[in-house]
């Protein structure tokens, strides 16, 4: 019973009952404690119940509370015997039964929620709670001895903030850094490389304040990433509508933007022409020039771009004219000189052009002549070849003519020669076949082998891919599991380690094994009783059968013989008597059983009453009643007088 008591006490403690540590069993429970524990249990079962936790001093109030508690417990569904006396004059067994019942009834929310997987919000809330707890636990440091406002603390270090002395606003500077210096497919302009190498400061030295480096870095990366993503988006959209390559799209967009800029500036110039200040317009012109100077894409063969360029230069001229018109007023002489110089240059240019055309003409003539020489050479070659052929033909014809005089003989000879060569050809062909067949076979085999290997390689590649994916998945899973494990470990550490747990399980195991044993025994007894029953049945059967047989035999003889008739009567009487005897034995058994049950009950009741009597007799209740009696007596006395 000790185990049960411990379990009950443990459960009561979890319900926030204040039970002293040295209370080990229900025997030690005082009436106050019993009332408190019962009230707590009832409140845990039904929060709305209003039951007092304490026993008051007054006897009648005690009685009232006792009956109220008993009433509530009955309402919950307790079927055993219960009344005010159960609490005030407690009996260990009754109390145990009541508490076992009550604790069974207490809802177990905590155990139900524990098994659910932790949701993200719960995890976050836990983390916040842990953080807050650790912050509250750490000592307060006056600001004048604090070194840094954010420090790493604890065994598994965590950032811990107190104050904001080190806080720096998120202030980003635009950063520049070389991109693609090692990329061989894209040439970097020499000047740009020079700038990168000697002038551009390191990325971490580009901010005015060193504190702004991290913010600037984060900002730079975010900008870089966004630009890249936006560009990809735009490109994919463009690719949907019209199929252009990335480069073409890039150029197109560049042109568009440049054109727009130019339009705006031109409009601006035209607009401001009225109050044109020479200085301002010159600056503008310079700026325009600088815009032209931006490297125009050098893509050969794209007619579109070429057209654009042409258009562009025209526009350029237009703008130049406009700007020049605004400038000319002030720089007259310079302008004249320039015109003159330009004229000279024009003349010289023309001359040069003349010479150039002449050179070109001569060149083409020379090319023509060289071509004719080649033609001639080819012709001679052809002639030579024809000559050789003709000579050969002549030799053959001459030989045949030589053979003609002895024609028959020669024909036979020739025939044999022809036959020989034909045979040789055939043999050569067979030989060739012999060689060819295995080679072809080998070739085919090799080819097959090759394709097999290829497919295998592909398969392996596929496998590798799947493995890699699996690896990633498993890695992620392990991470998640590790996280969960960490959480569980912390939770486990946070949990109050109740020693009872192992005792609990051990006890339960013992009980289970005991029950098994008892089951076995019960079964054994059952089989025994069954066997007995069977035996009894067979015996009664036998008896019946022998009786009927004897009955018949005797009955037959009885007709003839008087004495046998008498014995037949005796037999019948014997049979009746025996039956009566058996039923009597049966009844006695039943009554015996009943007696035993009743005896048990009597014993129980005896114990209880003894207990109650003892309790009432002892204790202050007796005094109380005595006092009350005295008091009443006094009153009576007063009344009399």
């Amino acid at each position, binding site marked *: 019973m000790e185990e049960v008591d411990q379990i009950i006490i443990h459960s009561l403690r979890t319900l926030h009952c204040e039970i002293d540590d040295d209370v080990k069993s229900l025997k030690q429970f005082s009436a106050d404690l019993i009332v408190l524990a019962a009230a707590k249990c009832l409140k845990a079962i039904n929060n709305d119940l209003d039951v007092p936790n304490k026993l008051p001093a007054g006897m009648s109030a005690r009685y009232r509370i006792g009956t109220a508690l008993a009433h509530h417990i009955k309402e919950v569904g307790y079927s055993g015997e219960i009344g005010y006396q159960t609490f005030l004059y407690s009996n260990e067994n009754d109390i145990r039964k009541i508490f076992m019942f009550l604790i069974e009834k207490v809802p177990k929310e905590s155990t139900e929620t524990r098994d659910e997987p932790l949701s993200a919000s719960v995890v976050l809330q836990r983390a916040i709670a842990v953080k*807050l707890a650790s912050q509250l636990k750490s000592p307060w440091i006056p600001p004048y001895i604090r070194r840094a406002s954010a420090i790493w603390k604890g065994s598994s270090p965590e950032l811990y903030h107190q104050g904001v002395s080190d806080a720096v606003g998120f202030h980003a500077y635009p950063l520049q850094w070389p991109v693609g210096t090692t990329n061989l497919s894209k040439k970097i302009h020499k000047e740009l490389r020079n700038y990168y190498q000697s002038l551009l400061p390191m*990325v971490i030295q580009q901010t005015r304040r060193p*504190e702004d480096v991290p913010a600037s870095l984060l900002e730079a990366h975010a900008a870089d990433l966004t630009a890249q993503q936006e560009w990809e988006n735009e490109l994919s959209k463009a690719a949907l509508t019209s199929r252009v390559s990335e480069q073409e799209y890039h150029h197109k967009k560049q042109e568009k933007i440049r054109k727009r800029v130019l339009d705006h500036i031109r409009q601006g110039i035209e607009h401001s022409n009225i109050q044109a200040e020479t200085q301002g317009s010159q600056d503008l012109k310079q700026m325009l020039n600088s815009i032209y100077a931006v490297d125009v894409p050098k893509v050969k063969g794209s007619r579109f771009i070429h057209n654009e360029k042409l258009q562009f230069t025209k526009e350029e001229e237009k703008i130049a004219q406009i700007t020049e018109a605004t400038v000319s007023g002030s720089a007259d002489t310079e302008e004249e000189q320039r015109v003159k110089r330009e004229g000279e240059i024009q003349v010289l240019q023309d001359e040069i052009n003349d010479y150039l055309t002449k050179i070109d003409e001569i060149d083409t003539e020379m090319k023509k002549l060289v071509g004719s020489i080649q033609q001639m050479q080819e012709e001679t070659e052809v002639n030579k070849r024809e000559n050789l052929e003709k000579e050969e033909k002549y030799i053959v014809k001459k030989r045949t003519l030589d053979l003609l005089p002895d024609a028959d003989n020669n024909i036979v000879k020739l025939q044999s020669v022809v036959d020989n060569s034909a045979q040789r050809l055939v043999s050569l062909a067979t030989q060739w076949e012999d060689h060819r067949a295995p080679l072809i076979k080998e070739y085919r085999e090799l080819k097959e082998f090759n394709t097999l290997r290829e497919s295998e390689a592909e398969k392996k590649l596929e496998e590798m891919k799947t493995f890699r994916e699996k690896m990633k998945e498993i890695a992620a899973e392990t991470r998640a599991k590790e996280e969960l494990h960490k959480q569980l470990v912390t939770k486990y550490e946070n949990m109050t380690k109740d020693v009872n747990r192992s005792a609990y399980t051990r006890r339960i195991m013992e009980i289970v094994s005991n029950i098994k044993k008892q089951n076995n025994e019960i079964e054994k007894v059952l089989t025994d009783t069954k066997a007995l029953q069977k035996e009894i049945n067979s015996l009664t059967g036998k008896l019946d059968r022998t009786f009927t047989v004897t009955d018949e035999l005797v009955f037959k003889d009885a007709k003839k013989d008087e004495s046998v008739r008498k014995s037949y009567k005796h037999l019948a009487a014997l049979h009746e008597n025996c039956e009566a005897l058996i039923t009597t034995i049966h009844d006695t058994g039943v009554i015996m059983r009943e007696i035993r049950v009743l005896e048990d009950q009597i014993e129980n009741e005896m114990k209880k009453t003894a207990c109650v009597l003892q309790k009432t007799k002892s204790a202050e209740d007796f005094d109380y009643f005595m006092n009350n009696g005295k008091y009443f007596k006094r009153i009576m006395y007063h009344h009399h007088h």
Partner: protein
Amino acid sequence: MEVSTNVLQGITAANNNENVPDDCFPALVTSACQGILNQSPHIDPRLRKLDQDVLKETLASFALFISEAAKHDTDVQSLMSLLEECNFSKDRIKTFVSVFCKNKPFLQTLLANTHESLPHVLGVKWRLDYYIKSNHLEKTHQPVYLLSLVTEIPGESELQELNFSCTLEQLQMLVGKLRDASKCVERFAQL
């Protein structure tokens, strides 16, 4: 964690032994970390023999990469697989991870400190006065508390003070509210 192609390109460039030899790689990663932490504006002398433009690109890429990883608190596993995809050798990955892990707490402290902040209350000074009389009124006889909240404003070296007075009732109200807040925090810590 997403990384831009420019940065990936820069990191991959550092993987080439011709661009960044093995003996320079640790110095490169360390310099990137130290650069973010503002601890040494000077670049490791070992890195002087590299092409300056390559050095600037790789250093910038690593600085961006490291700051981003610290910001996202990216775990070592993902970092390793990212570098593996750039074909880094095991040794280099190990070097990078060890340098990064060593510097991560400092980097994150710095990043945690990169934020705007309201004036932060660090403490309170108080004084209890007894208000006896003024030119308009005599026999007032009531206690007056002068409070001065000591606040810290980021970026200012001096602590600031916010001064105000309270009658006894007002201070009781103030303390009541602060006690509420403390209770709330404590309750939240026990969840």
